[in-house]
């Protein structure tokens, strides 16, 4: 009988995957004010890439023809950026901070094109920018909310991609402010921000250890977090109104990201001839465009179970961030896994 050949199996798998990723390279559509977005995945994923598609589509009311490329592999980023820039696109977006390096390489050859990394954290003068909302501010508010709603004074957060700046900001902000409010914080990172089953298990392990309010920053996996809260009847915060529908009694609020306003604001200025070469971060200090907000359901920011006194504290915190009275820059240590 033949011996087990794992090496053979692995070799075939790697070769196949490489071939397929190669096939999935960018093929930009042809598009006078034009904007395009490069997406790391498929627009049908009902998650991060679907959000990216909705971002570029939101530029149409601003007078842009739009296009997109899906499944852009790391190695194809530079070529895909060049393709769009050489076709006269005035704005080329990359849907995650990972596109920044390729943009910094390509941008000097196309000085009139605005390159924007969605959710990135750095820029390069004169025409590479990153846009994001202030995760630290909203993470801090979630920390305060969680601590105030916890009866066990133990709260938990489930995140992915430890060390990515906006994750560090939100997880760290959560820990700092929940701790200041008197709660013990435990954080778990999962492998895949799209894996709802893994997120649910992580959440259940936090609940097993006494946490009775959960939060997190995940993509499709956020649903698993809410399902765990529903199973064990603990409070949770979500990301988008869809999560309220899963457990209306238990979802305290959701973070609602306002990318159309953030990107639209920049696009209008690019159209008027201005270019950006920096990291632009929206928050309470950039009102009226704050980049994000809280929403339990349309027209209502928080679940009715959240006492008015807590809502008032949260509003005061937002005002303090807005006025600059309060500033917060979480560190990787703040966002560490564990307690």
């Amino acid at each position: 009988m033949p011996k087990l050949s794992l090496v053979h199996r692995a070799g075939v798998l790697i070769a196949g995957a490489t071939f397929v990723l190669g096939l999935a390279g960018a093929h930009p559509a042809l598009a006078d004010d034009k904007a395009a977005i490069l997406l790391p995945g498929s627009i049908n994923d009902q998650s991060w890439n679907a959000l990216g598609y909705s971002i570029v589509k939101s530029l149409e009311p601003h007078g842009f023809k739009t296009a997109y490329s899906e499944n852009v592999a790391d190695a194809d980023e530079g070529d895909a950026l060049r393709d769009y820039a050489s076709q006269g696109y005035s704005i080329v977006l990359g849907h995650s901070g990972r596109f920044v390096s390729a943009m910094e390489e390509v941008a000097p050859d196309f000085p009139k094109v605005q390159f924007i990394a969605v959710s990135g954290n750095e820029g390069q003068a004169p025409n590479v920018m990153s846009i994001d909302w202030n995760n630290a501010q909203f993470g801090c508010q979630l920390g305060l909310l969680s601590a105030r709603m916890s009866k066990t004074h133990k709260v938990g957060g489930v995140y992915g991609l430890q060390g990515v700046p906006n994750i560090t900001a939100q997880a760290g902000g959560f820990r700092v402010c929940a701790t200041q409010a008197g709660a013990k914080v435990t954080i778990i990172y999962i492998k895949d921000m799209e894996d709802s089953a893994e997120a649910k298990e992580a959440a259940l392990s936090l609940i097993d250890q006494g946490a009775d309010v959960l939060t997190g920053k995940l993509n499709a996996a956020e649903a698993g977090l809410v399902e765990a809260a529903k199973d064990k009847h603990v409070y949770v915060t979500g990301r988008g109104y869809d999560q309220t529908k899963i457990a209306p009694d238990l979802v305290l609020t959701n973070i609602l990201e306002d990318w159309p306003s953030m990107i639209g604001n920049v696009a209008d200025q690019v159209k008027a001839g201005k270019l950006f070469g920096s990291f632009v971060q929206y928050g309470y200090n950039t009102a009226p465009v704050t980049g994000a907000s809280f929403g339990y359901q349309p027209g209502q920011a928080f679940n009715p179970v959240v006492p008015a006194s807590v809502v008032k504290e949260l509003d005061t915190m937002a005002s303090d961030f807005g006025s600059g009275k309060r500033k917060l820059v979480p560190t990787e240590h703040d966002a560490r896994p564990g307690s």
Partner: protein
Amino acid sequence: MIDFLAASIRIATPLVFAALGGILSERAGVFAVGLEGMMLMGAFGAVIGAWASASDLLGLAMALAGGAAMGLAVAIVTVRYRADNMVTGLTVNILAAGLTTYLLHVLAGSSAIQVDPLGPWPIPGLSAIPVLGPLLFAHPPLTYLALLGCAGLSFLLYRTQTGLKLRAAGENPEAVFVAGSSPMRLRFTAIICGGAIAGLGGAVLSLQQVGTFTDGMTGGRGYLALASLIVGRWNPWGAAAACLVFGAAEAFELRLQTYGVPVSSYVVQMVPYLIALAVLAGLGRSTKLPAAIGKPL
């Protein structure tokens, strides 16, 4: 401890179904590299079926059908057209990823599909036993079905003539010919049935655990199931035990983070896979595949 063991069982359940499906296929002589795709189609079918019909049973039927459809694709290409098992399995995994993404968009648009997950079925009397009750007798239905599946497949493989012929199709197909049966038909049937069972593994993830389907939600569990069936020496109970070890490793990994171990989460997250590699390397020398596996007829 009870919570940890319960988590291990939850994480192992989808792997067990996939491993059982893989055993059926590999015992009959065809590598089960397509388990990931079969699970993914099963996960998709389960949620779409339950959502469209408001019936969990129809959801499960759709999971079986989805997994079986992927099995059918593997069977046609490998058995009928004698293609390489590895490449076919890999292709089916990619096909399932693309197909489920596309179909989800066609059927649901941009809105998320949400159904109520299958709830626990406490066994009257037994579930009230302290410690053991909540650990072993208060699970959702598919967890019990996984155990029944191990018993059923063991019986089929080792106690029936069909099982004997099926194993022979993987070891010595000529002997099956001599006995008057068609090893090709046996392989064909085994791959399709294996796909259906692996599809139930996907249903555990989507319909039993989270009540929704998301892109690529199997997240490599099909490959872990593949490792489990090798570690378990193509025996249903052995594979189930291996799945439980991998489940425990993942449950441990999540808990290890909460202890504040001063190590990056990326390193801690490798634990289940390092265990899998270590076990496979340890067993590698003594592990023997079915003799005629991967050989076209």
